[in-house]
Structure formats: structure tokens, C-alpha cells
């Protein structure tokens, strides 16, 4: 495959590109899902091709082909240059690329058990058995379980001399139980809503122990139907760590994408409330808020060896003791902003233009634990597992709903409440953060479906998180 990427780059350069790079990729995917003991979906997908991007003037041109011949790859490179050149009709300042090390390298995801070595029969048995256990709880109408696994071979070549081969293996899944009432539905999920994923093999899925959690999840879904509504008001909230991960993703991860800050995503994903001139001085949150973007974390879904520009994976400080200090960037955006390139550019398959994406953007743990946080809370709500998420196009005004909540009174968990929601403004919310779980509760949550770009791209991102407490938050917003 490497020779295809080389041919594509040569084609682009010969056609006039000032810079070109290409990825030749083969991605295989398996997914199995069951509803109420019936396997609904069993899919095996394979995509292979070459995607080449060419830089001319102010624009990237990109073209992808699935024709795995050197002549087709070369033609794709020439076409990418031709497309870039057409952008001159509406051009801007010439784009430059920040310098990065030129690497020739191999990298592979460590794994114990390759997910495709486990038979489809075993996978089918697992998802069916999990749904059976959930269905045995009276009142459960819908019991679902799903697992998905990816195996990607990626060859990266650039006109500056990069030659990198990576083999990335990812696995994960999840389950949920839904109880249907007269006027609403209630759902509980595990390990988190829409599943939890990581880089690694089938050992990730075995480690979830979904069968061992199925009954509890189902019972909680049924109990929610008759639980009282989350009260309206302004109270302290304690968030379970997967909800903290989602909070980070939406109100920090997207806001710090440099392409958004520069306006490159304005029409679709949006911009950001952040201004690069305020890096190093802007308060993002309280003193205990420390956020890193770390693509080197073992097992986390946003980990890799090199990004899709050939830049080595790195750990970058984003928020340090509450002060904003870093961004997610690539070679082009970093050059525009005068910042160091972060190695955070990835494309969704061979046929999508790489762009700035989150790696593993997460919280550095604190020094408490969940029991201590609840014990220290007089009046509040503990909320777990995301159910809905919405945030404005500058990543400020958010409203999130969780699957389940429990009242906290005088340092103890009280009754379960349904439809818990909370809303706020990002920096005000993060400024109210005053307790964090410790390293023993640190989970590298994986999100496999982060949407961005046009055509839309889905990225795999990681979010290390711990339970956290936020003070004086508006809860219980209703329609």
C-alpha cells in the first residue's frame, strides 16, 4: 500500500502542488447488535483506498479513489492538485505549514486478543445473553446490546519525506434497557450511553462485564418510570465520570479546536468563544481544573502513534490550574496562529480530508473520591450517564440531560429522580468546579461518533474523567 501513497503524492507534486501527502488505508469493521434476544444487525465492512491532499495557495485540494493501482493513485494526486487550483477563484492568503519532525516509523496498538480472532458466534452469544438478562427484569420493554471492532492499516507518505505505517485496533460496545410508560420512556445504559470504546482488542469488551451489570441496569430503567421528577432549582451537582467526559468533550474539547477558533468551521460546527490572543491569561475554570490533550494514553480511544500529518502523538496542556494554555491544532492552523503544531489532525477513513480532531482530552484527577464528594454535599443532585446533549455554536451555552439522578441530602444519597437536566455557561460552570475524584476513579472514556466537517466525518475520541462536583447549577429544565 505504501507505493500507492507514494504514487499519489508524486502525482500531486507533478501537477503543481507545493506540498502533498497521502494515506493508503484498509479498514475492516465488525459489529453485532441484539434487541430483545434477537441479533438485529451483524455487519462486516471493509473499505480500502487512497486519499491525497494537495496544497496550492490558500486551499487544500483532496481526492480519494478506491482503485488500488499506482496509475489510479497517481491520477488521484493530479486531480487533488487540480481541485486545489480551482479554489483560486475565491482565494485568501497563501497557507503555510508549521514545521514538524520528518519521520519514517512503524506504530501499532498494543492488544491482548485481536477482536477478529473471537468468533462471530461468541459475539452473538454475548449480545443475546446480555439482552436476555435485562429482559428477565419485569417492565423492561427494550433490551439492547452492541459491540463494534475496527482494524485499520494506514500508510502515510508526504512530499517532505514522511513514511509511516500504523496498525490501529479499536474495540468496545455497550448495552441499554428501556422501560416504556404511558407518556414517556426511561433508559439506563452501561458502561455509558451509546457504548464505551478504546484502543485495544476484545479484552476491552470482556473487561466491561456486561452480563454482570445487566440486571442492575434493567432494574434502574424500570424504577425510573415511577421515580419523581428531578426538582427545578439551583443546587450543587455531582456528575458521574462518563457525564464529566461528555461535558469535557462538548464544552472544552470542541472549544479548543484551533480551526474553529480561526473560523474555518463557522458555517457548520461553529466557532468558539476563545480568542488565541488570550492563551495564557484567560480563566477557563477553577484552580483544580487541569485539562490535557494526550494522544499517548495507553488504551484510550484517541491514542495513536502519529496523526494524519505524520506528527508524533503528544501530550499537551490545555487548561492549567484553571488558566487556558493550549489548543488542538494541525500544521496549517498552527502556522496561522503562530503556535506549535499539536499532532491532532485525523481523517475519517481514506476518503475524508484530515482535520483537527480531539485526541484524549480529559481531566487530570483530583484528590477526593465519589463517596467523599457526596459526603461533603449538603443539598444537591448526583447525575449519571448522558441522555441528551446540546450546546451553542460558540460552545458556551449548554444543556445536558442524564439518564438518572439521585438527590443528595446532608451528605447522603437519597431517592432516585428521573429526567435530570442541568444547564449553564461553560466558563461559569467550570469556575464552580470544587471537588474531583482521584486517580483510582480515573476512566478513559471513549466516544466513537464525534461529528465534524463537511462532508461530515466521525472521529474516535477519548476523555479521561473522574467524578466531579459543581456548585450552584440550574437543574430540572423542562419542556
Amino acid at each position: 500500500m505504501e507505493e500507492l501513497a507514494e504514487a499519489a503524492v508524486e502525482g500531486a507534486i507533478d501537477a503543481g502542488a507545493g506540498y502533498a501527502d497521502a494515506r493508503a488505508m484498509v479498514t475492516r469493521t465488525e459489529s453485532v447488535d441484539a434487541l430483545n434476544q434477537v441479533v438485529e444487525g451483524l455487519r462486516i465492512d471493509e473499505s480500502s483506498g487512497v486519499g491525497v491532499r494537495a496544497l496550492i495557495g490558500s486551499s487544500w485540494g483532496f481526492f480519494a479513489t478506491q482503485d488500488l493501482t499506482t496509475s489510479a493513485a497517481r491520477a488521484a494526486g493530479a486531480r487533488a492538485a487540480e481541485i486545489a487550483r480551482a479554489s483560486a477563484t475565491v482565494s485568501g492568503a497563501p497557507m503555510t505549514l508549521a514545521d514538524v519532525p520528518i519521520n519514517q516509523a512503524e506504530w501499532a496498538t498494543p492488544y491482548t486478543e485481536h477482536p477478529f480472532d473471537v468468533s462471530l458466534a461468541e459475539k452473538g452469544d454475548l449480545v443475546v445473553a446480555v439482552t436476555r438478562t435485562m429482559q428477565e427484569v419485569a417492565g423492561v420493554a427494550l433490551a439492547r446490546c452492541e459491540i463494534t471492532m475496527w482494524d485499520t492499516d494506514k500508510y502515510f507518505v508526504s512530499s517532505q519525506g514522511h513514511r509511516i505505517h500504523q496498525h490501529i485496533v479499536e474495540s468496545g460496545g455497550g448495552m441499554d434497557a428501556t422501560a416504556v410508560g404511558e407518556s414517556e420512556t426511561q433508559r439506563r445504559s452501561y458502561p455509558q450511553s451509546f457504548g464505551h470504546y478504546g484502543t485495544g482488542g476484545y479484552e476491552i469488551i470482556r473487561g466491561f462485564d456486561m452480563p454482570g451489570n445487566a440486571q442492575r441496569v434493567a432494574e434502574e430503567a424500570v424504577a425510573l418510570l415511577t421515580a419523581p421528577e428531578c426538582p427545578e432549582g439551583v443546587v450543587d451537582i455531582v456528575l458521574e465520570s462518563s457525564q464529566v467526559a461528555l461535558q469535557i468533550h462538548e464544552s472544552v474539547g470542541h472549544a479548543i479546536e484551533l480551526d474553529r477558533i480561526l473560523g474555518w468551521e463557522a458555517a457548520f460546527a461553529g466557532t468558539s468563544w476563545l480568542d488565541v490572543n488570550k492563551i495564557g491569561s484567560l480563566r477557563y475554570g477553577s484552580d483544580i481544573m487541569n485539562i490535557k490533550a494526550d494522544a499517548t494514553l495507553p488504551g484510550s480511544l484517541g491514542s495513536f502513534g502519529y496523526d494524519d500529518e505524520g506528527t508524533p502523538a503528544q501530550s499537551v496542556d490545555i487548561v492549567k490550574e484553571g488558566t487556558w494554555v493550549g489548543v488542538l491544532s494541525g500544521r496549517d492552523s498552527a502556522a496561522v496562529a503562530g503556535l506549535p503544531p499539536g499532532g491532532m489532525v485525523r481523517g475519517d477513513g481514506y476518503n475524508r480530508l484530515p482535520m483537527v480532531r480531539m485526541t484524549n482530552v480529559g481531566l487530570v484527577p483530583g484528590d477526593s473520591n465519589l463517596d467523599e464528594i457526596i459526603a461533603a454535599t449538603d443539598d444537591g443532585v448526583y447525575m449519571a450517564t448522558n441522555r441528551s446533549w446540546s450546546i451553542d455554536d460558540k460552545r458556551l451555552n449548554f444543556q445536558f440531560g442524564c439518564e438518572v439522578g439521585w438527590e443528595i441530602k446532608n451528605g447522603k444519597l437519597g431517592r432516585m429522580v428521573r429526567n435530570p437536566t442541568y444547564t449553564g455557561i461553560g466558563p461559569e460552570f467550570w469556575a464552580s468546579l470544587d471537588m474531583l475524584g482521584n486517580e483510582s476513579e480515573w476512566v478513559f472514556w471513549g466516544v466513537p461518533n464525534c461529528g465534524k466537517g463537511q462532508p461530515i466525518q466521525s472521529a474516535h475520541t477519548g476523555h479521561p474523567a473522574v467524578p466531579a462536583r459543581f456548585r450552584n447549577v440550574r437543574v430540572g429544565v423542562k419542556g
Partner: protein
Amino acid sequence: MSRALEVADKVLEMVARAAPAADAEVAVSDGHTALTRFANSFIHQNVGEADLTVMLRATVDGRAASSSTTAVGDEGLERLVAGTLAAARLRPEDPDWPGLAGAAPVPDVDHYDEATEFAEPAERAGIVKAFVDRGEGLLAAGYCDSEGGTRAFVNSAGQRVSGRSSRATLDAIHQVGETFHAAGKAHATSSRLADLDGSAGGARAAQKARDSAEPTELEPGRYEVVLEPECVGEMLSFLMFYGFNAKQLIEGQSFVALGERQFDESITLVDDVTDPRAIGTAFDMEGTPKRSLDLVRGGVSEAVVHDRRTAKKMDTESTGHAIPGGESWGAFPENVFLAAGDTSPADMIASIDRGLLVTEFNYCRILDPKTQVVTGLTRNGTFVIENGKVAGAIKNLRFTQSFVDALAPGAIRAVGNDARFAAAEFGMGIVHCPTLHLASWNFTGGARG
């Protein structure tokens, strides 16, 4: 014969040789997509792709597995067939397997324009330039795309159909100021790139952006609203996906009560691939001809869309709305038309003492499918209406609102005469709708939370 049909036939023959007793469905898409993207008033990303994807669902003794590949050489297709058959044999038996669609003719539609499928980047750049040029002093951002190709479907029950379609969209904004603090939006979609008018869109977006330049804050609360087609398209997308979807109905998660007047009598909603304005081909992922459906007629919910699996469960026939991944998600209508009324948006505004004009919704997410309570925000132009006139721009608001309740009997004051394709959550060229004037909308938060 098209290349898509040739490949589909070839894969079907390969399955027949490898497993004569297996049922097989082969769907092939073969086409070109291209997208020209701009920001800060210049083109920064410009992409294209030639794609041929083969999808195979094979069923052995009532055990089905699905696979897809872009490796369409002999070796890749052999791997596809062998892998699918092996997977099917390993899976648990499927008691809900509905069998294959029989041979049946599909509606004769032509929503294809060759010039759109093979449009050159210079043509899209020309449309972008026309849009950008109308916004002097503003920052333009958005995209113009064009795509087209052939879909083919064959199965071992004798169904063998193909069709072509194309689509082009201009979806873009103009913004005021370097902090992108106010914006105005324009959207156009057609089966023909030549129909897109960058200059008209640019003028509209620029005017909205300039009108939005100095927004004030407004207290959240319930307001009478005029919702432009992008808002309405978003609402209808949620109603389709979570409501008029037989799988959701079977699972008890849909709000739809067939035969009941759930909407205002001014609401008539159809799915009709034979409409000359429609985009797409006339058969679904299972090869079933798309049936034209009255989903809502005069406010009464009359039908939901089916694939073969849900049709079997409800003892009816598929309506031809199966989609990729439909085993898990259910069926989805892709040619939705909300009937236009006879009121102009200007007349709607003139009739309102105090209300809001909303250009677009942003980041809508459902809190519960059964109640259709959704939270989201306004975007790209939100204005206050006072004494029958647009009185000024306001900052974006958050809402938490049941989409069903918002369209309930008596809740619609007027239906616009300006129906067009609207940008919406699940894709372009899917929902065609007018502006709506609604009695009430629940805004639950503002710029300060």
C-alpha cells in the same frame, strides 16, 4: 447496462455458486461526490471522491449477515461473499427474518442531472464567488457541493432495479465582525447544480447578517414565533426519525397514534419520490419500490414508514423506506413534503404584536422520543417582532419544547407559501417545507444561561 448493475449481478452469481440455497440481496452505489468549502471568505477545503460500494445481505436458513466493501475487484468480491456467508451461518437464528422483496416495478422517476454528477470544481467555485461577493465587508463561510450516481439492487427472488439521482446544495452564512458574533444564513438544494443561485443566497445571508449586527438580550419565556424552513425542516426530521418510523411505533417509543388528529388541520405531510422536485431513486435498500404515503392528512396521523422487517411484525407490507442500518434504526422517509399554505412570511410578521422570527435551529437533541421534547438553540439570525414589524436582532436563545405540542391542533397560526428544501439534521434534499407561524414556543435560556 450500468456498471452498478453489472457488479450487482456478478455478486449475486457468486453467492448462488457458493451457496445455492442462500437468499441474497446486493445493493451497489456508484458515483461521484465533490464539495467546495469556504471560510473567512475564501475557499480553504475542496474535495472530491469517486466511490463504488457494494453491500451484500445474505441469509442462510433464516440467519442473515450484512457486509460491505469498496474492494470491487474479483478478490475483494470473493472475500465479501465468503465472509458474509460465513458470518450468516454463525449467527443465531433470526425469528423476524422477513424474506426478500419479490420482483416488482419501481416508479418511473428521473431526478438525475449528468452535469451535476460530473461538475467541475470551477463551477462550484463560481457559485461560491457569487455568494461571497454579495457580502462586502462580511465574512462568508459554508459549502457548495454536487453529487450524483447510480444505485442498483438485485436479489435472488428476482428483483432487479437501478436508478440514477443527483443533488447539489449551497448552504452558507455571512458573518459580521472578526469574532463571528452575528450571522445570516441561506440554503438551496436541487437535483441540478445549475439551479443554485449563489448571488441570491449571498444577498439574503448578507442582509440577515447586517440586520443581526447589534443583537440585544431577550428574557427567555414563551413567545409566538415565525419559524423559517430550516427550523421546520429540523422539526420534521425529528418527527420522522423518532415518530413516523414503524420500528419506534412497535417498540412503544413513538408518539404517533394512527387515525388520531395529533396535529393542526393545516398540516399535511407526504413522502413522495414521484414529486418532480424530489431527490433520490425510487426503491429502497431492500429493493422495494417506494410507495407515496400520506403520513399526516389534515392533521390526522395516517401512516408510518416500513421496511420489510417492521411490515412483517405489523402484518402489513413494506412501504419501501428501508435504509442502510435499518435493522437497528428502522425505516426513514427521504422525500418529505409539508404542504405549503397561502400566507407570506411578511404577512405572518405583520400579524404579530410581539413574537420572534427564527432563521435556524442549532444542535437539537431529543430528551424523550415519546414526548418529542427537544432542546436546541437558535442560530444565524433571531429577531424580535413588535407591532407587526421586525424590531431588531436578539442573541441566540435556548429552547426546550415538544415538537408535537408545537404543531398540535390550534397551535399553528399560518402556513407559509414559501416551501423549499431545507437544511435538516439527517441530510440535504430530504425535507421540503415552508415557514410556519406558531402560537407558542418555549425558550428556556439565553446568552447568560
